[in-house]
């Protein structure tokens, strides 16, 4: 099978109340990504955008960013969901042999959106939606189930916030670099029991673009230092209704990860992955997903966390960038994570550079409480 590489990345600084329209944000990110790849915009033959009519508050929202994403006169299409899924479609289009160089872009303007109303509309209109449930309150249910199943504590989850906000101190891009303690998290305002303010990711604006290229173009267009290979990918969805799932069971993630590992030829993820960007929109999610990813056994995520295994200087640094807890532009978060992994693998991640990074794992989510997962393995 032909290989596909990321040859360019571009993004806006994470922001709140960005003065730019979302089209302007996409233009900035895409222009930077094309410049980073060292190619001309005419070299791009197709565009995949990640766009959401709900988050953008307009129908066919991808229409508004097509000029900005350099799509005029080109083959363009739109994935609705996390950026990691859009990147997957970008790769599929290249592997089909139809395209050579693909722009994958995603934008999110959280500060112009109503998170509660928008995520409430992801629930069943007849039953659950009327309860007012949304992304935060459903996450609280999941956190509670996870705690009950394995006897975990809120303090253990708080460690994730302490670690990731601390990591963000080294990342100039980040929105919430903070030196905090477990007590700070525990004493922050209650949002939805057991989640406190510092367990939750902030509302964020941001656009991110990747330039993907087929092997034959990637080798011609860029140097070895720029190229990062898409080595493996897998995605899988669980049942829709929260009541039809065990919220602490990560079976869909396990299946997605298995597929990604098989494609990348990874036998033991604990040994072969050097760092990971895992979806941590809420603190409890990081250890839960690390279990699903096979980095540790079920129920052991917090134990590893306490041992410093996932610290910046630990055995497997997780969310060295500061993660979603430090900045979470929902639709584009997955692409930011892929861009972050790309910079790390290039050795260009600045002060938060992970040492000897050869193989990265990036994880994105669709739906509530991680109904659907997309797992990527990126490598030099």
């Amino acid at each position, binding site marked *: 099978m032909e290989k596909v590489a990321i040859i360019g990345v571009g993004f806006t600084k994470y922001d709140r109340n960005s003065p730019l329209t979302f089209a302007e944000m996409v233009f900035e990110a895409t222009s930077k990504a094309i410049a980073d790849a060292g190619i001309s915009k005419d070299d791009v033959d197709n565009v995949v955008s990640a766009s959401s009519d709900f988050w953008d508050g307009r129908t066919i929202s991808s229409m508004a960013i097509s000029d900005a994403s350099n799509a005029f006169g080109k083959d363009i299409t739109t994935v609705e969901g996390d950026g990691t899924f859009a990147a997957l*479609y970008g790769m*599929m289009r290249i592997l089909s042999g139809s395209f050579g160089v693909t722009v994958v872009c995603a934008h999110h303007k959280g500060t112009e959106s109503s998170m509660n109303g928008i995520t409430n509309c992801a629930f069943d209109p007849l039953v659950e939606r009327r309860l007012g449930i949304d992304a935060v309150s459903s996450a609280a249910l999941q956190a509670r189930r996870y705690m009950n199943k394995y006897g975990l504590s809120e303090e253990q989850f708080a460690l994730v916030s302490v670690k990731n906000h601390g990591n963000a101190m080294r990342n100039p891009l980040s929105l919430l670099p903070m030196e905090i303690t477990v007590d700070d998290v525990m004493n922050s305002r209650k949002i939805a029991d057991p989640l406190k303010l510092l367990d939750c990711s902030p509302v964020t604006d941001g656009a991110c673009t990747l330039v993907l290229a087929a092997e034959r173009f990637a080798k011609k267009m860029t140097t070895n230092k720029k190229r990062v290979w898409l080595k493996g990918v897998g995605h899988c969805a669980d049942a829709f209704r929260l009541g039809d799932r065990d919220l602490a069971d990560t079976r869909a993630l396990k299946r997605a990860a298995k597929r990604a590992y098989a494609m990348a030829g990874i036998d033991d993820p604990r040994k072969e992955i050097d760092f990971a960007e895992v979806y941590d929109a809420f603190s409890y999610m990081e250890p839960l997903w690390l279990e699903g990813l096979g980095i540790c056994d079920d129920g052991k995520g917090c134990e590893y966390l306490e041992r410093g295994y996932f610290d910046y200087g630990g055995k497997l640094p997780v969310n060295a960038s500061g993660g979603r807890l430090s900045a979470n532009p929902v639709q584009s978060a997955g692409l930011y994570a892929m861009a972050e992994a790309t910079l790390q693998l290039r050795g260009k991640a600045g002060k938060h550079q992970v040492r000897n990074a050869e193989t990265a794992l990036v994880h994105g989510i669709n739906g509530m409480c991680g109904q659907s997962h997309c797992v990527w393995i990126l490598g030099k």
Partner: protein
Amino acid sequence: MGKRVGIIGVGQTHHAAKRLDVSGVELIAEAVTRALDDAQLTMGDIDAIVIGNMDHFENINYVDMWATDGLGSCMKPVFKVTTGGTTGTTVGACGYYHVASGLFDVVLAVGWEKNSESDTQAAIATCANPTLERDPFAGAIGPLATEYSMYMKAYGATESDSAMVAARDRNNALNNPYAHSRQAVTVEDVLNSPMLSYPVKFLDMCPRSDGSCAVIFATEEKAKKLCPKPAWVHCSVVRHDYTHFGDLEWKFMPTLERASAAAYKLAGITNPLKEFDVAELYIPCSTCGVKWMDSLWFCEHGGAPKLIRKGTFDMDGQLPINPSGGVISTNPIGATALIRVGEAAWQIMGKAGARQVPNVKKALCTGFGGCSWTDLMILGADLP
């Protein structure tokens, strides 16, 4: 290089203005079940799923997640693509690329819409820029009326020409048991129907329907094994235009010209009028069935009225267009363009029943939407 891909099964619901007997998820299940039956497969044979619709219509966010029970996607890879009116063809193209990439062998592509539960015009009005264009270009009818007015003035086309297209498609629908609107109409009936926005009249315009369509794509190896006569995908091409309506060219359809020129090149087609045996085109309004024929390179600019008056595109003409009755007869928006793909596939597979065109070797299907976006797919009886 990628894999060759065939369509091995198609399913669609019975369409109606209101399908009160089913929920949205059940509507999807109806199409999915019929597609599996058509291909003689079970859900266990499906490796991945793609779905699309227009979110604001039914006010459901993350439709790929919500539709799990209807899609049969629990513990399977699934994602959502959407591009407005072209969503159906976009979903079809995504199913095609899933398989062509070599990542999946058998893929289910599903489009749907339950318009009876939505305020379509209100939702679609928000696609225009909120400060500049939402007022003058709110909704679908105004821009279509504008473009045909310009076309009539430039080339001497008439309201009768578009009425002939409306009568053709509406009468074709009499042969289609799945069609939403099935009534025999004459050109006079169309001309005498209430004016919506000059020169578009009630019977020129598509309805809003409840419905769903599912199409199953498979690799060459699987398709040959599973299906006696797959419809092979020869190419899939998309072109879009400027973001703002005010920037568009109105007298012809640049996206359709660019998309079809690119697709014909890929599929080795030099004389489309002669080489296609049937076309299922996204014609949301009969006026488009006149103007856009020029842009498909069936004739020079302004040549379409002559071909229509000659009956070139009738069921017994040189190139039958929309044997199914087309969009003017059935329009569940997120599924509409996928129905074009499904109907074209059935024509090649010889499964189109009373609306079958004899001996179809090559079929053209299109999607239309957004800011004059064109999604286009060419299917063939022979491998590409």
